[in-house]
């Protein structure tokens, strides 16, 4: 059986995107002012994808002709890629006009920002039996709801901060976010995060970053003495000890392709 070379990859990524905040549903006024503004810097928007921000007109019953607006923008070098915010009607009309839907920025979805939970080792999960590690089954990420209409970043969770020693037998899981540990992590302890892991102390246990398959996750450790390191299911154990150049030293771990790289932090 030959292994097929993959023709594509689907990944999430955070890219900066310009937003055009639409403040009126009066198409004539909008076009006029836009034309005036774009005449000042003719080449500024050369093929720049633009998200139309609709929250200001969300309450307005009258819609916009998005197809007309998109065509007008294209004439001026702006490429309308999709809409963000707005009412359900607006969004439906935008889809009709062939535009995409951006998910709203998380901060907008959450009216009040959640306080960062001061999770301490006291509240750390204490498990006797060892269920399957999420980091070792990358397929698990496929069980995530994939039927979202639009690609977009899942809302970021606040970073979990642990300020007490993480001892053998303890497991800490920062679901959907980053994990920062300010105290020692002993052999037999497990740190798991869907995002990055930072340990500002000797790290002698296991660190599993990108547990849901995020290949961009990294591990930063002040004193590298780990038993196991894993990113997005790609892991390394240290039967013969940690490599000399990083042993006990500040180090970072990241994925390059399918290789787990451990590099000293020298700056």
């Amino acid at each position: 059986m030959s292994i097929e070379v993959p023709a594509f990859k689907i990944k999430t990524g955070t890219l900066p995107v310009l937003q055009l905040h639409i403040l009126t549903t009066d198409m004539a006024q909008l076009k006029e002012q836009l034309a005036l503004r774009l005449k000042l810097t003719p080449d500024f928007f050369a093929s720049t994808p633009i998200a139309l921000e609709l929250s200001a007109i969300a309450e307005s019953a009258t819609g916009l002709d998005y197809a007309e607006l998109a065509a007008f923008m294209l004439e001026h070098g702006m490429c309308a890629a999709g809409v963000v915010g707005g009412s359900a009607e607006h969004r439906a009309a935008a889809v009709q006009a062939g535009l995409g839907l951006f998910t709203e920025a998380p901060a907008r979805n959450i009216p009040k920002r959640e306080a960062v939970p001061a999770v301490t080792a006291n509240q750390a999960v204490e498990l006797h039996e060892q269920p399957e590690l999420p980091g070792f089954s990358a397929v698990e990420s496929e069980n995530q709801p994939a039927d979202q209409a639009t690609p977009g970043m899942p809302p970021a969770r606040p970073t979990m901060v642990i300020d007490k020693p993480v001892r053998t037998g303890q497991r800490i899981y920062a679901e959907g976010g980053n994990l920062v540990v300010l105290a020692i992590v002993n052999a037999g302890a497990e740190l798991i995060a869907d995002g990055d892991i930072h340990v500002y102390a000797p790290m002698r246990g296991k660190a599993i970053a990108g547990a849901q398959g995020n290949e961009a996750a990294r591990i930063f450790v002040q004193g590298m003495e780990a038993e196991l390191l894993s990113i997005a299911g790609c892991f390394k154990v240290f039967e013969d000890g940690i490599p000399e150049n990083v042993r006990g030293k500040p180090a970072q771990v990241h994925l390059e392709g399918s290789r787990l790289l451990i590099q000293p932090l020298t700056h």
Partner: protein
Amino acid sequence: MAKVIVITSGKGGVGKTTTSASFSSGLALRGNKTVVIDFDVGLRNLDLIMGCERRVVYDIINVINGEVSLKQALIKDKNCDNLFILPASQTRDKDALNLEGVARILEELKQSFDFIVCDSPAGIESGAFMAMYFADEALVVTNPEVSSVRDSDRILGILAAKSKRAVEGLEPVKEHLLVTRYDPKRVNAGEMLSVTDIQEILRIPLLGVIPESESVLKASNSGTPAIHLDKSDVADAYRDVVGRFMGEDLPMRFIAEKAGFLKRLLGGR
């Protein structure tokens, strides 16, 4: 307010019961009303070390089941007036303990005692859990070898996550490290972990170091807590431990290798 202190370790055979006997005796010798409870139901040992095994009539399980009063089950120590022993049951197992019963006993003891010392069984099962759940402070007994240190680390994690103080979000259990069976000679030879090595892993304050000594075995067999021994390093070390626990600032002894006769004669190394 009475203090509940658990003597724990995770691993067996490191000196929990020896420490419980000497530590509670030491507290009592200083005039504190002290009771020491054997939580090792089914493997009753504390009464042997304290030399009161022939006076055990009732035990902690009888009290929990309401068969006898606490007063009937408490045994007065033969060496100290202020010390009482609540023995474990030999014929039952640890499932006979329950949190409500233990809570009731501790509440009652708190009325008349200054210190309640709980001698935990080895392991992390229900008996050890019952012994540590209500603790205000913990003496973690560790031998200078890796498996003992690893088990102590585990126990510290459980204390920090599952004790009553942790569950109810109160001030955490105060942790003390007690290194027992310490042999500076073997530490220097690289055969044992040093106190520094142990602290580097566990990172809790050191309460004391008890040197390895044959006299501990003799004391155990004769039913006398080691702290009562004459001219013994172990007795001195336990007295230091009690002193430090009571807030005294005492230098750490028995960490360095004893100079041999020739060495002393020739003026050290």
